[in-house]
């Protein structure tokens, strides 16, 4: 599977340098677009899980109509939105993490560290490229399948869709920040599998992937709403279901931005600390 190589000619000056991240992102987009069978298989998986969870939501809403301020159609729509976001936002982990992990194991991580580009920026660019491709395929296709199988309430106004896309982009940044932190534990632990597995379960629960956060009672609900995970699924879904509109949207974006910036800064600090004491595997 072709790893995308981007040659950087440093002495050509900053104009080339600025374009590096863009071409890294474009390369990642193209790379993922070559895994066609994986895309088809993944879309089927998302659709299967969407059908299962939508059925359980319908059963719950039949018992409790209007629960959490959603009607049954909105609750089902929520599930299909979250299935569309699962891989795009990498709630379950993955994306650049798999590449990074392989590079920890092989020792290639040393090559990444002496590239004349920013380590964190490089991987963020690949992840945004990946997310772009997956939004178009594993985001859109299960949603279309859901719309064919169930009654969904989706907005007709293109402006709401644009607002949704912005929220998804910020969600990817927050998710990247969290996954980057989980992955760089590999500098110390050699194997970040355990940390990643734990992160995946916590993300699934607190992002609202399995159940809208409005259904979390009391203090658990309060906690879920302030943790960064809510920025990954619950908030973009709120935008598309128009539970937050107008000026309330600014607060929502602000929350995503604040967590995104804080996590990236934390990741950068961790990286600085790690690089100082890194011992490269292999040779």
């Amino acid at each position: 599977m072709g790893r995308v190589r981007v040659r950087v000619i440093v002495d050509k000056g900053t104009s080339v340098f600025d374009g590096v991240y863009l071409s890294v992102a474009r390369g990642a987009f193209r790379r993922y677009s070559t895994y066609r069978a994986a895309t088809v298989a993944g879309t089927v998986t998302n659709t299967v899980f969407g059908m299962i969870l939508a059925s359980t939501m319908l059963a719950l809403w039949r018992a409790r109509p209007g629960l959490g301020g959603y009607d049954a159609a909105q609750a089902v729509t929520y599930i299909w939105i979250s299935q569309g976001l699962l891989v795009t936002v990498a709630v379950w982990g993955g994306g650049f993490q798999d590449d990074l992990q392989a590079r920890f194991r092989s020792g290639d991580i040393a090559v990444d560290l002496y590239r004349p580009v920013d380590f964190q920026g490089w991987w963020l660019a690949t992840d945004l490229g990946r997310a772009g491709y997956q939004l178009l395929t594993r985001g859109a296709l299960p949603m279309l399948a859901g719309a064919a199988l169930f009654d969904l309430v989706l907005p007709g106004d293109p402006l709401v869709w644009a607002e949704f896309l912005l929220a998804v982009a910020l969600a990817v940044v927050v998710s990247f920040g969290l996954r980057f932190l989980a992955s760089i534990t590999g500098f110390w632990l050699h194997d970040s599998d355990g940390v990643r597995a734990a992160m995946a379960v916590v993300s699934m629960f607190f992002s609202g992937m399995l159940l809208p956060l409005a259904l979390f009672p009391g203090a658990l609900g309060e906690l879920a709403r302030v943790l960064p995970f809510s920025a990954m699924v619950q908030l973009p879904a709120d935008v598309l279901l128009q539970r937050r509109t107008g000026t309330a949207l600014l607060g929502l974006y602000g929350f995503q931005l604040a967590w995104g910036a804080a996590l990236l800064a934390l990741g950068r600090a961790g990286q600085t600390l790690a690089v100082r004491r890194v011992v490269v595997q292999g040779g």
Partner: protein
Amino acid sequence: MAEPGRGTAARAGWAVRSWWLITGMWIRSTMAYRASFALSLAANTLITFLDFAVLLLMFAHTRQLAGWTLAETGFLYATSSVALGAANVLVGSVGGLGERVRSGSLDTMLIRPAPALAQLAAERFSLRRLGRLVQAFAVLGWSLTALDVHWSWDRVLMVPALLLCGTVIFCALFVGCSCVQFWWGEAAELQNAVTYGGATVLQYPPTVFAKELVAGTVFGVPLAFVNWLPALHVLGRTDPLGLPAAFRFASPLAAALCVLAAGLAWRAGLRAYRSTGS
């Protein structure tokens, strides 16, 4: 196979022994860092409870989901999770088949004097997967005490039989679905749709789903035999499809058919395999 084929029983015994030897090697390598393993197992067990917490949260808002109580749904959740978790511990690694076909490292396994399937199933054996199993047994223990059921001997015996057959069915699904990767290397996720997707379906009462889907799990991919059908007998509930009572006791037969189908798929896949030659 290098071991002389003295009949099916001897060959199966050798396959199990190979699996055990390779698994033992991975366990020893994990146990080199005992504290790290203990911590990650404990963390994994605790964290998989979040999965069950979703069910608890749903039942915080309603006393019954599609006519089933929390204890009954907990029984379904636990039995489905035990069967999937045990199968994942035993043969879950076969999902890595496509990667081996692509990189050509399956060849190495084929020339070793041990069955390729046993090697593949034991590859990178991860004890951490026991965490989910521990959690599932804890939920099962709780649901058995919480259920309002008259525990006659047939019902008591049904529980271990159900877990055993369910594990065999999921093992067969893991192996059978991974065979798709002989032809379609990147399609590892299709396996997830059947195994993890299937286990998720079985965690909820059958009455939650459309009748067509439930019928599909009886006559198509035989998931219903893992826990839905036998649970109808244990819990004393009526069948939403109105099938004859014999179906509730047919899990061993379904498991045997699954193993047969998976074995045929594996053979067909291995015959069709062309090495990448690298």
